[in-house]
């Protein structure tokens, strides 16, 4: 592992959290510990912003597998006219072989005051469209799940770079020292798994905390959340001793970041026992709220996400399901219908609920898959009504957190295959997300192995037009 390297916030306007801690003496561990032992969950909010933040927290609803844009937010009437044909502009190579165009069978209606067209598959979410900014022209570089998931999360297909959530946690710290700053829910596991929330060379504390929320009792969500035989006081005394001895051990080892990361991690764990029990307990929600979100893993994930951002967790990702449920290589229409039936209600409930609590204005909600799907029929294994991966152009949406609602940005071609107007590469998306959080993507860097690394590598432009 690497040694301590200086994080490079280029001339931070205010002292960074990290240097603040160091100035207080004794390394980060001891300061955080003081809070822990005082029983406080004092907010150690970021002072490292580059600009006033519009969003303080992010919820990313990840439709792993890749939904089809033209079923949901990007209607393409010309698909009917050219059904079964493969015009030149739709002759794009994707992962598998596809043939002629296949229209979406789902109807669109203008919705809300903005009158944006939304699919009949999303009756609940349609009602929130005035808060949503639909990006119709996102594109990525790779039509395979693994690389595309890495691109969406880490901005690169290299498995050695930090994830977006780790960058956020590093840039902003946490608002709640008793909970991890970055939490990942999946009822199972997405393809590629933990590399999607890695902290890579960033300090280990910024890694996403993965929680399989197939079961929702806090003790089941989080293994070993409670000690059956010891009291809080017993444990507090233990932690005090550990801290004292660990601190000496650390000092004798020149402040190795991995040791420091574990000290912090131990303190977070201690506090999590109490904070998490409360934060992860869905039973504390009223019956009406539970009903609003509906039932199922995704509903629970959305509700858990709201509970966590409410408590200052910086970044919550909710993967829709185990593996890649949106990966409809066969029987696409029926599967999409089923998936939307399940996902529509909780997504709408989340936006409505955040808004009602005044959280939507500084909580950014991101929706989308690792790519979209082809408007053409997949034929790799015979026509079984499937659609292949499409990385050339697909829809994502943003809501809240300083984003203009009720608008679309960018367009795909006549068939919804390729982004043609105002294309949004992922680095631009990442730059915009960081911008909304008050972070300049070119200045959020980390010096490692002789080089300044950043989430957007050498690219990325903020999409100013979608910022409210």
């Amino acid at each position, binding site marked *: 592992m690497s040694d301590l390297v200086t994080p490079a916030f280029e001339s931070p306007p205010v002292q960074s959290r990290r240097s603040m801690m160091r100035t207080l003496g004794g390394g980060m561990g001891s300061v955080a510990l003081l809070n822990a032992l005082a029983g406080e969950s004092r907010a150690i909010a970021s002072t490292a912003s580059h600009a006033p933040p519009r969003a303080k927290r992010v919820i990313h609803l990840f439709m792993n597998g890749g939904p089809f844009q033209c079923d949901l937010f990007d209607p393409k009437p010309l698909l009917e006219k050219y059904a079964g044909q493969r015009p030149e502009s739709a002759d794009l190579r994707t992962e598998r072989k596809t043939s002629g165009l296949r229209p979406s069978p789902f109807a669109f209606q203008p919705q809300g005051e903005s009158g944006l067209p939304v699919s009949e598959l999303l009756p609940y979410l349609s009602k929130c469209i005035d808060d949503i900014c639909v990006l119709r022209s996102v594109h990525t570089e790779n039509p395979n799940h693994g690389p595309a998931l890495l691109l969406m999360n880490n901005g690169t297909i290299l498995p050695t770079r930090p994830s977006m959530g780790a960058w956020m946690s590093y840039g902003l710290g946490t608002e709640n020292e008793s909970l991890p700053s970055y939490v990942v829910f999946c009822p199972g596991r997405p393809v590629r798994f933990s590399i999607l929330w890695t902290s890579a060379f960033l300090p280990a504390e910024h890694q996403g905390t993965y929680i399989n929320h197939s079961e929702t009792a806090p003790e089941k969500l989080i293994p070993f959340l409670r000690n059956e035989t010891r009291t809080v006081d017993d444990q507090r005394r233990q932690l005090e001793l550990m801290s004292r001895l660990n601190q000496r051990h650390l000092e004798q080892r020149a402040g190795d970041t991995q040791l420091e990361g574990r000290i912090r991690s131990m303190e977070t764990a*201690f506090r999590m026992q109490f904070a998490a029990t409360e934060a992860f307990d869905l039973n504390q929600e009223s019956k009406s709220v539970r009903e609003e979100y509906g039932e199922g893993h995704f509903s629970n994930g959305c509700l858990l996400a709201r509970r966590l951002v409410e408590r200052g967790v910086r970044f919550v990702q909710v993967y829709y399901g185990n593996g890649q449920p949106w990966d409809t290589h066969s029987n696409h229409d029926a599967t999409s219908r089923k998936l939307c039936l399940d996902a529509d209600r909780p997504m709408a409930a989340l936006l409505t609920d955040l808004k009602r609590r005044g959280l939507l204005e500084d909580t950014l909600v991101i929706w989308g898959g690792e790519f979209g799907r082809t408007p053409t029929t997949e034929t790799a294994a015979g026509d079984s009504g499937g659609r292949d991966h499409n990385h050339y152009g697909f829809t994502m949406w943003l809501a809240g957190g300083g984003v203009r609602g009720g608008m679309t940005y960018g367009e795909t071609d006549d068939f919804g295959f390729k982004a043609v107007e105002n294309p949004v590469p992922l680095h631009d998306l990442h730059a915009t997300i960081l911008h909304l959080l008050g972070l300049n993507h070119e200045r959020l860097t980390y010096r490692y192995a002789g080089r300044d690394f950043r989430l957007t590598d*050498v690219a990325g432009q903020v999409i100013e037009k979608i910022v409210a």
Partner: protein
Amino acid sequence: MDDLNSWRGVTGRMRNFWFDIACWVIAIPLGALPVVRSFAAEPHDVDFRRDIRPILSDKCFQCHGPDGDRESELRLDLEQSVKELRDGVAAVVPHQVEQSLLYQRITTNDDSERMPPSESGKSLTPREIELLRTWIEEGAPWAGHWAFEEIVPPSVPRIDGDWARNAIDVFVQQRLTAAGVPPSSEVDRRTFIRRVSFDLSGLPPSPEEVEQFVNDSHPLAAERLVDRLLGSPTFGERWGRVWLDLARYTDTTAEWLNSTGQAWLYRDWVIRAVNDDMPYDRFVQLQLAADSLPDVELEDLPALGFLGLSPTYWKELRLAPDVIKQVVADEWDERIDAVSRTFLGLTVSCARCHDHKFDPISSQDYYALAGVFASSQLGDRPLLPQDEAARVMQARESVREIEEQLGKLKTDETEPRQGLEQQIADIRNSTPHYDAVSAHVMVDSSIYVEADGPDLTKLEYRPGEARDLPMFVRGNPSNTGKVIERHFLSVLSKDEPRKLNNGSGRRDLVEALFTEARDLTARVIVNRVWEQHFGQGLVRTPSDFGSQGDPPSHPELLDYLANELIRHGWSLKWLHREIVLSATYRQSSLSHPEGKTVDPENRLLWRMNRRRLEVEMLRDAMLAVTGHLDRQQGGSAYDLDGPSQQRRTVYGQIHRHDLNRVLRLFDFPESTSHSPHRIHTTTPLQQLFVLNAPFVQQQADSFAAQLAVESSDQARIEMCYHRLFGRTPDATELEAGREFLSSAHGEHATTVLADYVHALLGLNEFLYID
């Protein structure tokens, strides 16, 4: 400090041997310039493999590579194409930068002309352009990919000073000197025995072992310690598990296989083979082809578990053959992936749908290998001589059929039930060794996916028959091209690739691994062993030695060790010994400013990397230091979450699709596919395990009961430190312990000792190896 005995005066014998060898004097130290490129021994040299090929591969191959779009004739992966004239110009004219079209196109101001084109999303950095320029100026020397080249046994250079203990150190020192970074000081004996014990046995040393070693005045104390550790059965338990990660070992196989095999036979075979220091070539041979080699003992048949425990995917025969063909092809693909990455460090699977984008592996090569797996099926084999095994298998099949009939009976059909049950009993009684254990093995038998009527599918097996597969166009098994004879990878073959056509071809495949691919095979295993000892490989992508992988930090060292491994009859214990006795391995893990500035990633090995215990080591160490470890070896797997399980973690049950949560928390790999190495994470959830898991609490509680008999708090504290950390507590630690133990009153008084032990088990000093 305990470092009473000098390490010195031990290795004079070894120290002389390179003086006799042809040698060259290294470059004058550069002075510590904090420049990344100062790693290069010759700073102005552009090395094609290190500097140029990665640029071409990353930035250009997408269009100008093996599988580039066919618009461009120019292939930047082929020297001839790069240097030949097209319409009077060549992409590269050696020594003539201005004449080289490549250079013109990457530097032109005309946006529409400049390469790489902007729509590729790629661009060259000024540094990369500069490298390409220098390379052309220096004559544009070309070289094949390092991993595919034969080893030219490197001579061990002469080097100044007395730091080096063996040849490893000479190669390491050479690069350190060139970079102006001094090596770190040697660790004291306590640190060394802790480090080497975990590395070789996966367990901490006992207090007695520590004291014995610290006070050992024998000049070969370290050598004797290492030999003892290498000779202990715990060595196989530690290193066998390293192999099982690569082999995606599982204790449970898919239920539809109706398997009677016992997976642990493979796990135990691996552990035994590692303990016996079975030569690596034999070790691999048995795992891929024990069924088709002469003179294989029955006890070696479980070796086939490497393939015999491969993941299988459900084949729903009610679906169309096209769908099932895909599933079957996915299984072959997984096996190709596991075999090519484990043994060759190559990602051959990438060539399933198209020629490999970065490495010279064609789709033809892929289907040539896939044929081997299409001709080999998973099976169970009672560990009995052939004819007895056949009888037992026949009997078991009959029993299975009768059981099926039984299952169809209604509950009130008592009489037929009794009849069938009697039949089963008769078969069992009349078949000798009916209950013999069965290993997961491979058999030569080819599979065909056929239509069964208009809609359904059937699988046809042809025992003893091999098959060559047709190419699947773009990976689609329903769109087949020409039939490819089974053969070995072309890029590793000098002439016509070896045919893999004796039986399934698995036996030929092994021969190829240790003949034409021998040098690569050796480099890959050397690097794996190295990585475990240092926490970082010489090549940091241990299962990708292709052009997208990481180039070696010390190519000569890697080649030296690979070559010596072969010379030492593929003895891995020889390799371990060489590594852990080197001065490089004995360095302190403390950072120093020169190293930190020049080489923060420690690629030059100016210190030891501090490492976190892997989950097996953590769990085993908790059991060991509290005196609970049950050292019973081998046998069927136990439930890690069970109430009183105190055997080593390597014997805990691995479920392929439901990994134990503690293993999962601590980064244990999924056994669904080959795992090149573990990724280490630090999360609060891990710490909750330490704070709250009943397992940890139990160890603390019962160790506390043992400690209670000691006469004083000081004695108790000292015992804890000796057991857990192999050392005596200092005054501050004693004071902290006393304070903790004496502060408890009332109900705390009974548990305070356990709480103390528990806290120590949670310390960084327990989890990390210096």
